């Protein structure tokens, strides 16, 4: 009798092991979400409420921080810069990465693997290592505090990842299909437009989305290469940690306004993003 009961509990939906796992999963999720959640709460507090000890969980929310941020600094300008640099660097990156990935996937040579490894290795270097040369280049070409400089740097930063992702998508296309299109009389452009592109549209979208998110959140180069004119939302957030002290609630409000667009965008495209990042992981 005892055997049967323990068998049943092992098989039942609410076994202790499953419950332990569920609790653990929730704990980790809450831990990861906590900074963002706290940020959202703080944005609606006054400065005094924000620095209260013990930390306040219940309070009357206020929208004054958002209006102050908008009045004091030009949110729309920064948002616009973020948008333009992200979109432009994504498009430019895709236009450069796709042909590169195509060449590597379908015309593999002796050194292709090495080149891919080398590309990835450039991402292993901390960005700060290249700060001085890039800054000097931007300065001498008069591109400091310009969107152009940011677009170029974002594109180059994201290119290795984009080439890798597109390469792994393109590898999945059987090369015979492309050969068949060539036999059918397709030029390279037609082969791309009519056969390759429709088959890799998902991969292209995932790669583009990832690049968009990476560029939007990019802070290092934005802070170092831009100021008032070409500053992105990252610059906006940083400006709220001033020498006068940290204005927690305004900082939170600014941060929320900075990440809101991309979070909303990411929420709607999460399926593609996840697909893109986990593609090929399980065959």
């Amino acid at each position, binding site marked *: 009798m005892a055997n049967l009961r323990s068998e049943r509990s092992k098989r039942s939906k609410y076994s202790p092991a499953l419950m332990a796992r569920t609790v653990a999963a929730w704990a980790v999720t809450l831990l990861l979400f906590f900074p963002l959640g706290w940020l959202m709460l703080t944005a609606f507090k006054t400065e005094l409420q924000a620095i209260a000890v013990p930390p306040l969980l219940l309070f009357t929310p206020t929208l004054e921080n958002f209006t102050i941020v908008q009045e004091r600094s030009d949110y729309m300008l920064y948002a616009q810069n973020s948008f333009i640099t992200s979109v432009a660097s994504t498009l430019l990156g895709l236009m450069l990465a796709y042909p590169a990935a195509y060449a590597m996937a379908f015309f593999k040579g002796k050194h292709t693997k090495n080149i891919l490894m080398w590309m990835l290795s450039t991402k292993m270097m901390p960005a700060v290592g290249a700060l001085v040369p890039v800054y000097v280049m931007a300065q001498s070409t008069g591109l400091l505090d310009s969107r152009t400089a940011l677009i170029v740097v974002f594109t180059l930063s994201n290119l290795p990842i984009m080439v890798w992702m597109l390469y792994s998508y393109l590898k999945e296309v059987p090369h*015979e299909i492309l*050969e068949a299109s060539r036999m059918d009389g397709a030029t390279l452009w037609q082969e791309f437009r009519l056969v390759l592109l429709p088959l890799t549209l998902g991969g292209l979208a995932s790669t583009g989305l990832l690049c968009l998110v990476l560029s939007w959140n990019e802070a290092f180069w934005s802070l170092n290469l831009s100021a008032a004119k070409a500053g992105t939302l990252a610059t906006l957030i940083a400006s709220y940690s001033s020498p006068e002290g940290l204005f927690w609630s305004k900082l939170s409000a600014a941060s929320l306004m900075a990440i809101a667009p991309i979070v909303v965008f990411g929420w709607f495209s999460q399926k593609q993003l996840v697909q893109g990042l986990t593609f090929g992981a399980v065959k």
Partner: protein
Amino acid sequence: MAYLQLQGIEKEFGNVRVIRGIDLEIKQGEFIVFVGPSGCGKSTLLRLIAGLEETDGGKLMLDGRDITDQPSSKRDLAMVFQSYALYPHMSVFENMSFALKLAKVDEAVIEEKVGRAAKILNLTDYLQRTPKELSGGQRQRVAIGRAIVRAPKVFLFDEPLSNLDAALRGQTRIEIAKLHRDLGATTIYVTHDQVEAMTLADRVVVLRDGRIEQVGTPLELYDRPANQFVAQFIGTPQMNIVPAKDLQALVNSTALPVQPDGFIGMRPENISLCAPGKGMLNGKVELVEALGAETLIYVSTDSAVQLVARQIERTELVVGSAIGLHIDVDAAHLFDAAGHITRTGAARETLVH
């Protein structure tokens, strides 16, 4: 005047010469089969003709035009791939009309041509389906249809039946033969299956290590092989090839004009069984394969020579039975030490009604 001409075609992959100087002339309307063991270069040769690989030497002429340096899209050839290579995101109709659309052919003409090809291949009900909604045999037919619609100068088939099961393979083989009869198009067909080669070809090209071993009609290759390789490649089960030294007694008693270091080739159907002691050789049965329409008997002679005999009748012999062998020496092929034919054996008779 050759319709398709290969002159001194060469191809290297790295340092390996995969195609070593191929010369071939193909007449218009011929069904040519490239056959050979794995790695002999038959698929590579096909791809060179198609333009999917560049030649490293030699010339390719099609209908009087030099196409050696032309890209695939301009050669007016159609290829049926082993893996079918259908466009997965297009319907059957779109797959078959792709080439015509690229050539900016009129819509009505496209409809008519695709409709006609679909009818020949029994695909009319499937025109709106996508490849993943089709079975292997149907996909194969779409791949063939895609080629037919273009009415190219030459059809190229790259082992099209390898991915089909045995029953479907036989069926599709017959359909391809009928298609060729109806369309009369010049066709080059690559296979490693010699049954396909024997049944479909007007002429067979046997390849080994990037060289042509022999070109001829299927029966020419069967009855008059130029060397040991062709003799053993064509015909199932393989021709029995034995060093003359191992059958010295037989050579002496029948005065076979074979070189002392040469080889004797006997087809299984030219070896018959009799009671032990009553034949030219004696041996023991090693294995009996009853195939229904014929029986194969594997024998090990007293001098340890392995032979396969074929007979139409059933047998009661079991493994270990003592048996006598009678060889039709007139039908035996004799080879020299290097494997070249020195005497061709007599062929089977033709039954005239």
